[in-house]
């Protein structure tokens, strides 16, 4: 019996598989998105269900500048990875540093906001349901930003020491996926908390 020649696949075709790092990171992102989904759902579910004040309109300031900073940091980290892939370590250092600075500005903005609300306006996680959901959701995001910032600064320090080479571009790209995810989540959180929820 003769073999039926498979018309499309030839036996000598290339054997290529997806990259481990990227797959792993995308999976982590999948798991993290599930966590965020639950927090976002509970935020939306509890909107307007607080038994006492203050309400979102009374207390929230829309962090436009911080949002712009965080979102543009996605762009800068993209440039940084692209530069590293082409082997331009100076440009990499610049763009990576810019990402770090923008991220720091964002977290500083959140911290200042929280300080204002907690110590000046006496609005804490215990105050009411809105406080609970607000601080949890934004706090969960902020903690992810913080983890990202630790990673960013680690790579930055290594880059300053001249340890980050072209062959590390893949790893930096995997890391940048995480950072893009953190930014994308902020788009959702921002929409839910500051646009819809107010």
């Amino acid at each position, binding site marked *: *019996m003769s073999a*039926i*020649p*498979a*018309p*499309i696949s030839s*036996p*000598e075709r290339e054997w290529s598989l997806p990259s481990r790092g990227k797959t792993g990171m995308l999976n982590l992102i999948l798991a993290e998105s599930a966590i965020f989904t639950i927090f976002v759902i509970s935020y939306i579910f509890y909107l307007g269900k607080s038994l006492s004040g203050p309400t979102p309109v009374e207390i929230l300031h829309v962090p436009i500048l911080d949002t712009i900073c965080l979102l543009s940091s996605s762009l800068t980290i993209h440039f940084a990875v692209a530069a590293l892939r082409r082997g331009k370590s100076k440009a990499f250092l610049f763009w990576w540093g810019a990402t770090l600075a923008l991220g720091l500005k964002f977290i500083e903005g959140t911290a200042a906001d929280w300080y204002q609300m907690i110590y000046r306006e006496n609005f804490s996680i215990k105050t009411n349901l809105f406080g609970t959901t607000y601080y949890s959701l934004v706090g969960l995001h902020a903690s992810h930003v913080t983890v990202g910032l630790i990673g960013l600064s680690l790579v930055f320090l290594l880059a300053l020491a001249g*340890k980050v080479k072209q062959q590390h571009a893949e790893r930096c790209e995997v890391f940048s996926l995480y950072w893009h995810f953190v930014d994308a989540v902020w788009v959702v959180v921002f929409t839910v908390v500051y646009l819809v929820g107010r």
Partner: protein
Amino acid sequence: MSAYSETNLSSGERPREIVLPARTAWPLVLAFGLTLVFTGLVTIAAVSLLGGLLSLFGAVGWFREVLPHERHESVPVREEVIVIATERREVARIQIAPELQRLRFPIEVYPVASGIRGGLAGSVAMAAVAMIYGWISQGSIWYPVNLLGAVVYADALQLTAARLAQFSMLLLLVALTLHLTTSLLVGLLYGTMLPMLPRHPILLGGVIAPLFWSGLVYSVLGLVHPLLNARINWWWFTASQIAFGLVAGLVVIRHTPVRVRQFVPLAMRAGIEATGMPEEKRDKGENR
């Protein structure tokens, strides 16, 4: 066939040693540290502090394990001969169709369209019988429609018999959705099932299945939905089911069964024509 030897799975020389990731305790330290951080929450803060320190050490240790270069260790390859063979040399074939060496089930099916057409035709027949019943018994063709709607829209059953005979848009929509979806699904089922009883498909689809279904509904509806049960005339119910079964079954078997095309290469199924494509006729003889 290319780089594929007939006696072994793998081609190429056996290496002397193989590089594997080095063993390390840092993941353990990190895991223990993180657990201690949480344990501190239920015991005393000092435990969390210790856990934090351990986690830091663990993380740094792990980091140095993979950066700048992953630590590896070489494992010498054991000398061994692996022969893959079996004592069960004979291969028997289940005889379904003599010309087929390896068979895919089923050999022939009715096309999907036949199921859809059958379901739709059956639904019309069933609706006709049911409406005749409504017209004869209650003087209104809307009566069975409203009853069907009441299956999911429970409030309808609070209505009096007079109201049930009136036209209601909501109930009509509910009933139509239910009726059409179910009919389509059952029609599709008929399309798949009828080839399994090749000699008397009409007996199965047209009489036995509706009788079974009517019997099942008759026996459980009193428990599940007593209010609805009180309003059903079972002779007419069975008659409408059989009407569906007969019409749907007849429509389905009027189509000619087609051979399954699962074994045909994807490209051919997609309709690509090119040289080197196997002939369909030859194909049939050689596939399971």
